């Protein structure tokens, strides 16, 4: 749930280094209406965005498990996130609702009786600034010393290092896959599409698998969090902006988003810039959830960044518990229709506006057209 969609590999690596191997870690199921109906009843405390509301169902499900019963419900309050934009943006904070969700949701489980104690489960929710690596060992040691008796500060530090290594390895693997896809698109002169969303939209109950429906039409789908960030590629894409003094590095977003405090928001804005400069990303699909206050101010700039590059832009806003299957189907068909009709021209126009010598390589057809 929530930030675990982008940090779960850190936690697996971290706990593994502490001697709690992956098979002893139980994740709650994907979000679903059924999960909420069964396990979140009476646990709500306040009306808020849909992804945070769903956390009650996740907690309830974990507490109710009869098979593979859990001993500790670990729900970190992730204050800041590790992001490839760290050092280039002002900060790397989590959404204020997402970071505070464990406290909010906990209240629903203790307001009448302590549901954790009744289930024989210890609730552990340390605050952790994953975007600020030096403080993480201290935070996690303080947060876990009661739950894991005998844990030392030194082994916590080693485990934190292992966690970051696991996360970096995983991210690098997905980015390499992203590059492979873009190289294929360049070679075959085929379009792909980019999803601009928060990591938790990968949860089928939150993002409703809209991108899966789109992929069924044969278009490769990339997520902005895992775009390739190899230097050759970024210099090719952002070099002209750097040379013109608009930005200081390929990861700089202050030209489009001066208040770059929020990690996920920053990545969405950066992803939009990336899509605007990548010829084979012919279409961007934006997803956001019901009452997402973080996304709200970004609607106009993200759309403007994408559309002004001549890239198709479609958005699915206010996603909620119910998948509007009919309207999603119609919109997916519309997107597919537009891609089929316009992608070749979009790629051609964006290529013409891009610098020469793309490091992804280019199709034979394009090379002969431009040389002839």
């Amino acid at each position, binding site marked *: 749930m929530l930030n675990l969609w982008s940090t779960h590999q850190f936690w697996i690596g971290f706990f593994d280094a502490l001697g709690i191997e992956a098979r002893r870690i139980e994740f709650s199921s994907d979000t679903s209406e059924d999960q909420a109906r069964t396990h979140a009843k009476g646990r709500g*405390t*306040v009306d*808020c*965005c849909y992804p945070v509301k769903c956390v009650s169902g996740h907690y309830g499900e974990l507490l109710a498990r009869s098979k593979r019963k859990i001993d500790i419900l670990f729900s970190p*309050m992730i*204050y800041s996130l590790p992001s490839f934009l760290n050092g280039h943006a002002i900060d790397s*904070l989590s959404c*204020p*609702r997402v970071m*505070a*969700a464990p*406290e*909010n*949701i*906990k*209240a*629903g489980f*203790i*307001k*009448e009786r302590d549901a954790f104690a009744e289930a024989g489960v210890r609730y552990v929710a340390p*605050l952790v*600034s994953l975007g600020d690596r*030096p*403080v993480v060992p*201290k*935070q996690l040691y303080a947060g876990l010393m009661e739950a894991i008796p005998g844990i030392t500060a030194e082994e916590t530090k080693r485990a934190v290092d292992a966690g970051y290594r696991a996360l970096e390895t995983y991210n690098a693997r997905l980015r390499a896959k992203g590059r492979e896809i873009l190289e294929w698109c360049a070679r075959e002169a085929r379009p792909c599409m980019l999803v601009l969303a928060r990591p938790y939209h990968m949860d089928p109950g939150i993002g409703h698998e809209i991108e899966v429906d789109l992929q069924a039409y044969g278009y490769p789908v990339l997520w902005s969090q895992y775009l390739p960030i190899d230097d050759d590629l970024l210099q090719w894409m952002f070099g002209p902006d750097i040379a013109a003094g*608009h930005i200081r590095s390929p990861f700089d977003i*202050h*030209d*489009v*988003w*001066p*208040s770059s*405090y*929020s990690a996920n928001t920053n990545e969405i804005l950066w992803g939009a810039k990336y899509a*605007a400069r990548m010829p084979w990303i012919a279409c961007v699909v934006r997803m956001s959830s019901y*009452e*997402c*206050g*973080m996304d*709200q*101010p*970004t*609607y*106009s700039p993200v759309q403007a*960044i994408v*559309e*002004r*590059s*001549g*890239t*198709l*832009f479609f958005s699915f806003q*206010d996603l909620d518990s119910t998948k509007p299957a009919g309207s999603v189907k119609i919109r997916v068909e*519309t*997107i597919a229709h*537009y891609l089929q009709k316009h992608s070749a021209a979009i790629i051609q*126009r*964006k290529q013409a*506006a891009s610098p020469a010598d793309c490091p992804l390589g280019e199709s034979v057809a394009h090379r002969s057209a431009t040389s002839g």
Partner: protein
Amino acid sequence: MSIGEAPGRGYASLQKVRVVTETAPVHSPKRPPPLPGRVPSGPAGPYRAYKPRPFTRAERDKVTILFGGLHWRAERLIQASMENLGYSTRVLPTASRADLLTGRELADIGQCCPTSFTTGNLANFLREETKRIGAEQVADNYVYLTAGSCGACRFGQYHQSYELALRNVGLESFRMFLLGQNGLDQGAAQGGGLELNLPFTLGAVWAVVLGDIIQDIEYQIRPFEKNPGETERVTREAVDYVYEVFRKRPRRGEKWVALAWHALTRYFVDAMREVRVRYDAIEVDRLRVKPVVKITGEFYLQTVEGDPNHNIHRWLESEGAEVYPAAVTVWLDYLMRLEGQNFEERFGIDRSARLKYAGIRAVQALLRWTYNRMRHALADLPREMPDQFELRALAAPYYNARLNGGEGDMLVGKALWAYHHKKAHMTCELSPYSCMPNTMSVGAMAGVLGKHPDLLYAPLEIKGDAEVHALSRCQMILTEAKKRAQREYENVLERIGMTEERVHAAVAARPELVRATHRVPRYGVAGTAANLALHVAGGRPS
């Protein structure tokens, strides 16, 4: 089939309704109907964020700085402190319902209501000025100064709403600057027209402190004044007087000297003594039994007095309550506590962390000391600031102190502080519709109420346009608070063995007790009347 204007004669609202008047194709057969969505025409220039042109020092004489968003006393005194430094300023009018609608119309959908109010407020002001002097003059003659934030909530992204609104009203060239909340001396900003130096910051902070102190006594006196309207009049006179005091503030140095002067001078203390003299003349009847209602919540909504929070302060007073307003100074103290916590977390990691932490604590101590000096000048009648570390400790079981945005753990801490120390009978918490961080703190209050079911807590979600819902919700809790205040008073009478008539007679026999600035000590009960009854009976203060 074709579409035309509806006849609707006599009904202006109907005249623009499009109706089907005949059968004909809507689209020309030669031109296929457009598909939904947009077909891009090709690469245009890349999108760039709004970047205001500099406000230069040379322009300072002819450019007026616009600002707003606080309570009117603090705004007026900040205005004076800026004029003292040579700036021409203008306070925006308090946002109205019309501003809310404009804000919703001009910025992206789904924004929180303070964003809608403040965006619409600026846009409507500029529209009116544009009608008067033209867009070019507006862009040249005004700049807007607003608080920024280092947080991840939309408060840190307000500029995006303003920017969009400015574009939508055709004022892209209008200049707007963000003032960081966490910077004391930010040096010359954006061309040197606005120098965010220490005299600027100290003037603004002292203006807030004095404005808060005046607000606090005003709210303690008005519900009990014998001559209706007197408190209002005296408050306006007092603010006008202190306005002149700030306008004539002596210039003493730029950095440390300025800080030392502000910290040690009697200049502002004497001004507050004069304010006390003015309030002294008001006669009060503090034996009117009223529930004390503490206001907490999101910064803008708890601070502003007007449409953005359904005029909740005045409404509560009209319903028979004594309002305990939220001081902006407490917010400043909280921001410093947050900053200190950042350093606290780095103890053992960053060598300079302890020193920086000590620096923050020293500034916090200076703020508290100054606040107390001003309270003392008003006979200690204004209420004290809560201790931030006590608030943190009270909230800790329910809400982590590091979770910032909105009021964070302070929202929980203040409710518990008011409850445990009997500072109020009820807490009225104001959260904007779709406020991200505040909803989290409010949710955590469910745990608090589970443990303290007798804590009277009215969390109001403010949308700006659902006044009846918000106020009726508040009224339900207020009814219980009134009963409690009455019960508390009756219990006190029973405890001291006096009838109501005897207490009234005892008060009448002591003329100082009807003076507005006489401070009644606290005896461990929340209500003003109950405390006064215990006072005349010779009780021991708590």
